[in-house]
């Protein structure tokens, strides 16, 4: 028996984070008007929560997608069970995956059965809004099961690990959980598959090609600068999660540590400069194919500027952005000041910035000058060096 079956809930209370009370209510409902249509994504517990009703003493009559589901089968299997009493009194009927019904006659027959049933009927579907279920929906109450959260899945995986004596740390379990994307069945199957040796490590995850771990900029830069393989250089920053201008910034920041010799630097910077030109053209013309050239020039172009091998280099964060951001408010203030003086100078803002502003801090030594143009302390503070 695989783990998924082994650990499937035997009591409906074990089904986590889903509106299971409405299931119990329906199972006990009297009269049995309408079927209960449970809908939600794969692996969130629709079917297994009905199965768990067995643990509450219910007999389960089931038709699932693997059975032939034409009108005749529905009539003979379900029709009968819906009107007779169960062996021990309590009985429920489950028809799985109604959205996968291929036979229209089957649904028509199913509706007939629902109209006259004396036994609670449960239906499940991934997509309850599909066209062929339109009529059927009129005979159903709907209940939605939500996609399971990774943290919930992780919790369940941990319980299984404990029982199976599998060693795995939290981050590994979380990776498996989040990779499953809400599908508990997939998560348990994967855990079982990976835990052959009684231990699941990061190494196993990677070996499965399972975690597409984004490459850090530090590793990316190392490949970019050091590799001797053209294609490795070209793709060195592919999996780094930054945009192109930011990557460029990282390269220019660290390039001086990599290339100590001036002719290497000149070549590398020439490549970067060309990359930036293509970047500018992309921005202006929105012709994104040019990105190929930006990338080639800034990776392989820089890499091939190397003339002599370099040793270990510790890469640094670019500090430029922060400094620029700090100086931006300064530039804004200068412009504001230029606007103030423009009517007096009768020249463009640019001219005022270039020709008058440089002298203003000298002129502002005169208090009357400050008063005349109502210069604020903020404005004056930009000017004092």
């Amino acid at each position: 028996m695989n783990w998924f079956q082994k650990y499937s809930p035997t009591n409906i209370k074990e089904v986590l984070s889903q509106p299971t009370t409405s299931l119990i209510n329906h199972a006990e409902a009297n009269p049995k008007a309408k079927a209960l249509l449970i809908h939600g994504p794969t692996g969130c517990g629709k079917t297994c929560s009905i199965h768990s009703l067995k643990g509450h003493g219910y007999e389960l009559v089931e038709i699932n997608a693997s059975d032939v589901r034409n009108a005749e089968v529905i009539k003979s299997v379900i029709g009968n069970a819906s009107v007779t009493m169960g062996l021990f009194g309590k009985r429920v009927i489950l028809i799985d995956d109604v959205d996968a019904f291929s036979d229209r006659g089957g649904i028509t027959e199913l509706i007939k059965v629902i109209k006259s049933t004396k036994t609670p009927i449960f239906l499940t579907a991934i997509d309850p809004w599909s066209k062929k279920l339109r009529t059927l929906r009129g005979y159903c109450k709907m209940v939605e099961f939500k996609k399971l959260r990774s943290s919930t899945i992780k919790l369940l995986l941990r319980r299984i690990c404990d029982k199976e004596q599998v060693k795995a740390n939290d981050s590994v379990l979380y990776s498996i959980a989040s990779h499953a994307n809400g599908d508990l069945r997939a998560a348990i199957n994967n855990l079982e598959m990976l835990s052959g040796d009684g231990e699941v490590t990061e190494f196993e995850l990677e070996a499965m090609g399972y975690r597409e771990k984004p490459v850090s900029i530090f590793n990316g830069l190392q490949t970019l600068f050091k590799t001797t393989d053209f294609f490795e250089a070209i793709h060195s920053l592919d999996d780094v999660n930054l945009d192109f201008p930011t990557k460029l910034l990282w390269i220019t920041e660290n390039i001086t540590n990599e290339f100590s010799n001036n002719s290497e630097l000149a070549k590398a910077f020439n490549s970067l400069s060309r990359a930036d030109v293509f970047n500018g053209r992309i921005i202006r013309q929105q012709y994104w194919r040019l990105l190929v050239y930006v990338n080639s020039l800034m990776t392989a172009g820089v890499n091939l500027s190397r003339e002599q091998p370099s040793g270990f280099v510790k890469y640094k964060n670019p500090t430029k952005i922060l400094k620029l951001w700090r100086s931006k408010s300064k530039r804004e203030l200068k412009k504001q000041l230029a606007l103030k003086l423009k009517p007096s100078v009768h020249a463009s803002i640019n001219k005022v910035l270039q020709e008058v502003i440089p002298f203003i801090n000298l002129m502002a030594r005169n208090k009357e000058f400050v008063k005349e143009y109502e210069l604020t302390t903020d404005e004056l503070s930009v000017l004092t060096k």
Partner: protein
Amino acid sequence: MKLWVEKYRPQVLNDVFGQTSIVKRLKSFVKNKNLPHLLFSGPAGTGKTTSAMCIARELYSDNWQMNFMETNASDERGIDVVRGKIKDFARTMPLGDVNFKVILLDEADSLTKDAQHALRRTMEKYATTCRFILDCNYSSKIIDPIQSRCAVFRFKPLTEPSVIEYLKEVSEKEGLKSEGNALSAVYQVSQGDLRKALNILQSCGSVSKTINESLVFEVASYAQPKELEKVVTLALKGSFSQARSLLFDVMLKYGLSGIDAIKQIQSIIMTLKTDDKLKVRLLDRVGEYEFRMVEGSDEFLQLDALLAQFYILGRES
């Protein structure tokens, strides 16, 4: 206390300094209360804008502000300004006894070609109610159809004696004493640009009531950061990292744009005490990177890249 460029700006054509023959022609236009479209070309600080304003004052006396509009093409260079603001002003009737209005379009050479063509139509269409005065540094940047519709006046940079004469007058009024060659030094750093000369004189005056040559040079260097020379020298020596971080700091400190910085680097290279052949090679490269800066997206990167080329170029000689 006002900016001296404002305080001493001439109010009548007679006071416009150092452009005698031009002033004479302009005065006859005012006297006849008729004006062709005018194109003033010439370097900065030679009286183009001032002359235009004087014309308006003398033509309309008290109504001058209602019949005169000043707009700067460098601040509003799009075609929309020509189609909107200028056209709106041009098509309404003038006030008073002169039957046209005057529009001054400053720094007209920064208008795009499209805007200039739109302007040419406006000039024709509203010629009865409106005259244009276009100011520019280079008349070659103005399209021919506009030039042919204008009377062109070329303003000359002021000569050293006339600049000094003018500065003496201002100094007297402001109670400034100048020692030795101080005023001649002001001319040297301003090169016939009266606006620049006045700004420097005023700045000197704010520091001390007695000005001398060394004060003038010190003040003038405020407009052109000394550090940039050091940036160029460092880069030529091959100290790239130092050159680059100094350049970055200078740009932030003075709020220089990439284009500002590259322009200054270019003018520093011109005056470099070095082999002329190297100068040409450097200038060629500076030009290439100025072009790349215009085409590209990151001006800092382009400047860094330019500095990285300097040492190699120096070694080739």
